[in-house]
């Protein structure tokens, strides 16, 4: 339900339904008043006719004629209320025995009275007709039938509104669910693409509406991206092959020369040449790996990996290196993080962590040099953090150090090619995670690899 409430079409239906119900309610209220007024007006007309008939009979035959007519009308079962009385209010004829008490009598506009009567009547709308000083007629209409009709009508109106609301919510829910399913379909395909499957497409829906147009557009865009990616992959693969072949020959020639160069004293130069080739190659490999990772063209293993053993293994490999370099180490594991698993590529993640450790080893030497490797869990995230006690990084440079070829020592004399953090960043993003960099107080750099936990 909460998911449905986030769907825009369902929310639109709900808002529209609310407005529609409110306006319908107002219309029905108005209609109810109009019908009530029409019924009252009809009653009043009948009563006036009745009163005119009484007046006429008094004019023709005096008291006896009126008394006869009142008695006759009172006999008829119906809504008529009659009381013929003398000048002192004493009963002469009619179906009401006496005038109601003043408390049960309410004066209304234009001489109308609203009366509360004894059974069989309930409430009545009535007038007084005065024939002479000694003869008065109370003539009225019982209201209970009209009131019952109006109450029935109000109940019907209310039920109609309720049905409208129920059908509206159900209809809106169905529409929302359908829209949600189709958007979910699009999202599903896009997620596959984000994780590197560029051949994924949105399954076409049967309807021909604006969403279908959108799906077709996205599919076209995906086809374009895929062809660009394939072209890019072909270029990098060809480049890799074409560059490696001459380098292989060059290296073999230099090695051959170095065998005979022992005598001529050029061995050192040739050794240096070989080292230069290897450095060139390692830079080239790093650029290629980074490009593949950022472009998502290199296929990545999608295995379930337990994070703690992976971190332990890397730490076990590097602990000795740090200790021999005079560092002290802390390896902190949050209890909730010990069983966490993620989906991804073990080699890539190990490489990311190793890059961070080697970075710390070269750039994060503090006094005393100390490294904290921590594994913590925060909700659905697992965080592998490497913190050193070095001088850290200026705040304004924090945002830049993950960019390609950015090196903070101006002379570029320290080892490294400026691609290490870029690769870590790309590996994290390829796994749907992030690399967070921050300065640690009082001094040091803190690098966090944040990944989503998969149960």
């Amino acid at each position: 339900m909460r998911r449905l409430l986030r769907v825009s079409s369902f929310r639109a239906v709900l808002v529209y339904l609310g407005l529609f119900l409110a306006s319908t309610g107002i219309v029905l209220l108005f209609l109810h008043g109009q019908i009530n007024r029409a019924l009252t007006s009809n009653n009043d007309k009948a009563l006036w006719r009745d009163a005119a008939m009484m007046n006429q009979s008094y004019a023709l035959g005096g008291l006896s004629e009126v008394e006869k007519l009142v008695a006759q009308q009172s006999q008829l079962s119906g809504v008529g209320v009659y009381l013929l009385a003398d000048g002192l209010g004493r009963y002469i004829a009619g179906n009401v025995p006496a005038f109601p008490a003043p408390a049960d009598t309410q004066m209304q506009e234009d001489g109308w009275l609203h009366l509360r009567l004894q059974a069989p009547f309930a409430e009545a709308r009535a007038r007084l007709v005065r024939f002479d000083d000694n003869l008065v007629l109370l003539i009225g209409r019982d209201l209970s039938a009209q009131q019952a009709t109006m109450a029935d009508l109000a109940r019907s109106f209310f039920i109609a509104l309720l049905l409208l609301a129920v059908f509206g919510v159900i209809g809106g829910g169905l529409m929302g669910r359908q829209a949600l399913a189709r958007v979910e379909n699009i999202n599903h395909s896009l997620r596959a693409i984000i994780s590197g499957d560029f051949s994924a497409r949105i399954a076409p829906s049967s309807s021909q509406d604006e969403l279908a147009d959108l799906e077709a557009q996205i599919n076209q865009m995906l086809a374009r991206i895929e062809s660009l990616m394939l072209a890019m992959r072909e270029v990098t693969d060809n480049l890799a092959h074409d560059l490696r072949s001459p380098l292989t020959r060059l290296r073999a020639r230099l090695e051959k020369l170095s065998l005979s160069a022992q005598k001529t004293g050029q061995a050192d130069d040739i050794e240096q040449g070989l080292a230069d080739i290897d450095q060139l190659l390692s830079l080239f490999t790093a650029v290629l790996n980074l490009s593949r990772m950022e472009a998502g063209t290199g296929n990545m293993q999608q295995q379930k990996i337990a994070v703690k053993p992976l971190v332990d293994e890397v730490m076990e490999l590097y602990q000795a290196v740090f200790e021999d370099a005079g560092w002290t180490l802390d390896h902190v594991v949050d209890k909730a993080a010990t069983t966490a698993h993620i989906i991804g590529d073990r080699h890539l993640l190990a490489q990311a962590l190793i890059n961070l450790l080697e970075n710390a080893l070269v750039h994060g030497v503090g006094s005393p040099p100390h490294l904290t490797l921590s594994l913590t869990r925060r909700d659905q995230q697992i965080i592998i953090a490497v913190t050193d006690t070095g001088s850290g990084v200026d705040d304004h440079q924090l945002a830049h150090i993950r960019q390609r070829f950015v090196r903070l020592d101006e002379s570029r004399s320290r080892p490294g090619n400026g691609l290490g953090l870029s690769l870590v960043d790309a590996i994290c993003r390829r796994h749907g995670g992030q690399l967070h960099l921050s300065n640690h107080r009082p001094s040091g750099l803190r690098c966090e690899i944040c990944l989503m936990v998969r149960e």
Partner: protein
Amino acid sequence: MRLLLVEDDPTAADLLIDRLRCDGDIVAYAENGEAGLAQATQDAFDVLIVDRLMPKLDGLTMVRQLREQGADTPVLFLTALDSVDDRVAGFAAGGDDYLVKPFAYEELRARLEALMRRKQPAQDTMLTLADLTMDVIARRVTRGAHEITLQAREFSLLEYLLRHKGQVVTRSMLLENVWHYNFDTQTNVIDVHISRLRNKLDKEFSAPLLHTLRGRGFVLQSADKLGDL
């Protein structure tokens, strides 16, 4: 060693063959996969060195067909394709080792030696070299009368060295086979572990067993036999 090199770049092949012959190997050459497959089925070789991208028949298909015919000659892929996928595909096709171009000759040499001697039974559980003994089942290492206490990874490292005793093993071979990572590191991480192992193994004894060969790698061997390497 009898070797077959299957490689479509004749210049690179010539350079490599020269070097291998200098070291006393007998090297046959095929310039594409089809010719390579024919030669490999006709003659007996100790190790096949196979490029991947070749005309007529690529290296992967060649090795797959060779394996289907029942040949178990060790295969080392020597290729410009360096991604993890390529590597996995190489092993899946029946390759035994994978080296990316360009390579240091010593790296290739060490891997060829390892492949050739791989045929020795790996299920030995008592490994020895001079007065060094490793009981793989009981996880016990002794040198002379002294027991040497090793951590788990040090034990694996020594076991690998003992199973390749007398052979040069390179840093990347150790990283691949002991730690199971196949990427290069920027630091001397393997050297640090070797030097720690050497401390436990050789420090108290007059005859060192674990040696570093500059520019080549490491070897576990009695000092008096080092001259052969």
